[in-house]
């Protein structure tokens, strides 16, 4: 049996971890994700999405599920490993004071789990105060030192100077982690769940699988819709010069009724005919370097070819 990939979502109280988790559940795209959280309280799920509620478990209509940790984290892990069928991805929302490096050890030790990455969420509004808090500051630094990726939330609520200060802190505290600015709290699930650099030792730099430039900062763009596209327009879009675009991928329905998946990474593009997704809804996501990529520019270009 393949081990279940595990992604940790860490960050202090109020940083926006739950927003990220909600967005992963909403955009699971058929992936059967199991989310392990401290409590259901803040998980803002559409009531229609919940098909069963059984004590510490919520089953969702898209195949995902949510479990609470309760007072024994390991017992919760054990319950998940006994599920049949097993989830395809395990997302653990750690407590605001958890050391994700330590929490992640279970996914390195347990042969039925495999650690994909540690995502640390920080928010532009409270970061500075949390860092200065005598009870919290050090915890926050420890979290960032383990980050395979940093997701920044709430940048729309502060001015650019605050974001600049945050950036300089992150450059110092998590110099190797790519940063993702989650505009309006949305994060592309593929990017958050994909394998990222894992630090196996404290302070060590023996990570593998470096998919990103160290310390690079990204912005994202996402689309979901029922409109169709012409094949030629799609191919043109995949070749269109877009400053700072790092990756663009998705699945759309063409005007002839067939479905096509597409993927653009750097100068590489490919697309192929595929079976219709379930649900039958088009989607696309893009990630680009924050200082060059303008999501609005892509949004304009993409909207223009929707039929």
């Amino acid at each position, binding site marked *: 049996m393949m081990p279940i990939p595990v992604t940790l979502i860490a960050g202090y109280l109020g940083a926006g971890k739950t927003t990220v988790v909600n967005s992963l559940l909403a955009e699971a795209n058929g992936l059967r994700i199991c989310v392990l959280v401290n409590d259901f309280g803040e998980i803002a799920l559409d009531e229609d999405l919940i098909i069963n509620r059984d004590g510490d478990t919520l089953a969702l209509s898209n195949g995902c599920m949510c479990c609470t940790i309760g007072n024994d984290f390991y017992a919760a892990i054990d319950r998940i490993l006994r599920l049949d069928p097993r989830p395809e991805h395990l997302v653990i929302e750690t407590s605001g004071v958890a*050391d994700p490096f330590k929490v992640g050890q279970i996914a390195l030790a347990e042969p039925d789990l495999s650690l994909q990455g540690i995502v640390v969420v920080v928010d532009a509004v409270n970061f500075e105060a949390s860092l200065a808090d005598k*009870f919290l500051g050090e915890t926050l630094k*420890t979290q960032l030192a383990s980050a395979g990726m940093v997701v920044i939330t709430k940048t729309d609520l502060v001015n650019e100077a605050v974001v600049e200060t945050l950036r300089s802190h992150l450059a110092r505290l998590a110099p190797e982690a790519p940063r993702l600015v989650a505009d309006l709290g949305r994060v592309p699930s593929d990017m958050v769940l994909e394998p990222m650099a894992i630090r196996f030792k404290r302070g060590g730099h023996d990570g593998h699988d470096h998919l990103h430039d160290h310390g690079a900062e990204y912005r994202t763009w996402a689309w979901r819709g029922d409109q169709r596209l012409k094949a030629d327009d799609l191919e043109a879009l995949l070749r269109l010069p877009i400053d700072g675009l790092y990756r663009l991928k998705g699945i759309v329905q063409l005007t002839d009724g067939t479905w096509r998946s597409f993927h653009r990474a750097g100068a590489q593009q490919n697309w192929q005919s595929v079976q219709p997704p379930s649900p039958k809804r088009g989607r696309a996501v893009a990630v680009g370097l924050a200082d060059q990529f303008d999501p609005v520019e892509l949004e304009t270009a993409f909207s223009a070819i929707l039929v």
Partner: protein
Amino acid sequence: MPNSVSEIQGETVVYAARRIITMEPTQPDATHVAVRDGRILAVGGPDVADAWGPARRDDRFRDAVILPGFVEAHSHMMTGALWDYLYCGNVDRMDPDGKVWAGISTVEELIDRMKTAIEALPEGKPLYCWGFDPLFFAGERLNRRHLDQAAIDRPIAVMHQSFHLMTVNSQALSLAAYDSNTNAEGVVRFPDGTPSGELQEMAAMFPIMRRLDVQMQTLAQGEHAIRQFGKAAVQTGVTTATDLYAALEDAEVETLLQVTAADDYPLRIVPALGVIGMDPNVAAQRALALRARSTDRLRMGICKVMTDGSIQGFTARVKWPGYINGAANGLWNLEPDRLKEMVRVLHAAGLNMQMHTNGDEASELMLDAIEEATVLHPNSDNRHTLQHCQMAGEDQFYRMARLGVCCNLFANHLWYYGDAHVEFTLGRDRAARMNACRSALDNGVTLAIHSDSPVTPMGPLHVAWCAVNRVTPKGRVLGPNQKLSVPEALHAVTLGAARTLKLDRDIGSITPGKAADFAVLGDDPLTVAPEALRDIAVLGTVQAGRVFTR
């Protein structure tokens, strides 16, 4: 079960003793105590019960010394059933049946003990051991090669005394597919890169425990665990003991009610509802509902709040200047803001909280939280208790007194970990003020002292001995100015402990009206040398008038 003598309804029994130490200032000493219906009727001399009509004289304790039954205000249910596993510690330790297991300190002794135990096990069945402490073990660090000498055809798992480490044999390692490619930091390696068999922290231990079906929870739940806990208490003179972090789910509460109601059950259990991971309002409602279901022998309603980890594990939250080896500060169990919210809600509900705080930053946070909660909800006399509270300074003890907060200090740590604290964690100066019992009393703080059994062995006389002598195995005296007198230490394992649990109206001293709970000792703690306090034999207990002899 120790032989128990049920009393007859309405009968007055007068026990004579060599000495009765009451913990009551009005009458600190007596020779006779009259008991009726499980309660103390009268205390005094041979004529103690004359005013109360006919009485039966019982002289079985004539040569013994009677104290109030000991109150272990920080222990865990697992204490008893842990003995289902093979004891492999370095100190002599008594099992719930009173059998003393000699300490072992060499590989040869360990392997011999394991082989003997394996002979009684069905083929292929794993061998579980506990109590092992590498600090006191001679020679090379215990590893799989040693354990393979005991068995290669069945898994062996040795839980260390700290419960944070485990050493397993090759067969157990292979169950979890641990090999040179395993990246978890807790899987310790030999120089050749292969796992040594030592596993550090739960993440590394858990894959083995799952596959061996070791569930620590089952050691802390169910009739067997509850009965064994009761037996362990009798061996050490304890008549009231906490289970200081309990899930208390409905089925388990039923079992607790049923088992403790048995006529021969020798212990009053005080389980504390573990609230970490619960919504504060749900936790408060649950604790209040449990409190309403309490019986004399099952006192529910107190809550346990966890804040930080342990000092020797470098997970306690410690104020500047931190750990002497430069280790990073420890871990909070829950966000400080959430901890404060929990404290506020439970305090407002009038509930008593027992707060695990090892480091001085943790005790500071809880004092802040209590102070804030008190401003909003000026309840008096909640008796929130800082548990362990090992590093509190004068400022914090003074503040506890002002806030009406009690402390339950981990005096046993001075002996079991004192040298380690001097050498590895805090250094000589701060180790000297650890578990500062004198400061607690001098500042007017209600004081209990504890074993945290099974972390260290249950045994109030040993705990009191630690608080009185403050010596370490290497002969250091940690903070001689913090020593307690023997009467003060005995108070801390009886009435002081009862007060921290808000049970002092019923137990903790020998005075008319309170439960007839006695610790029966073979010698007089007030006349033996203070250094010999821990060597006094415990002959048994009387619990609510029922006699339990060892």
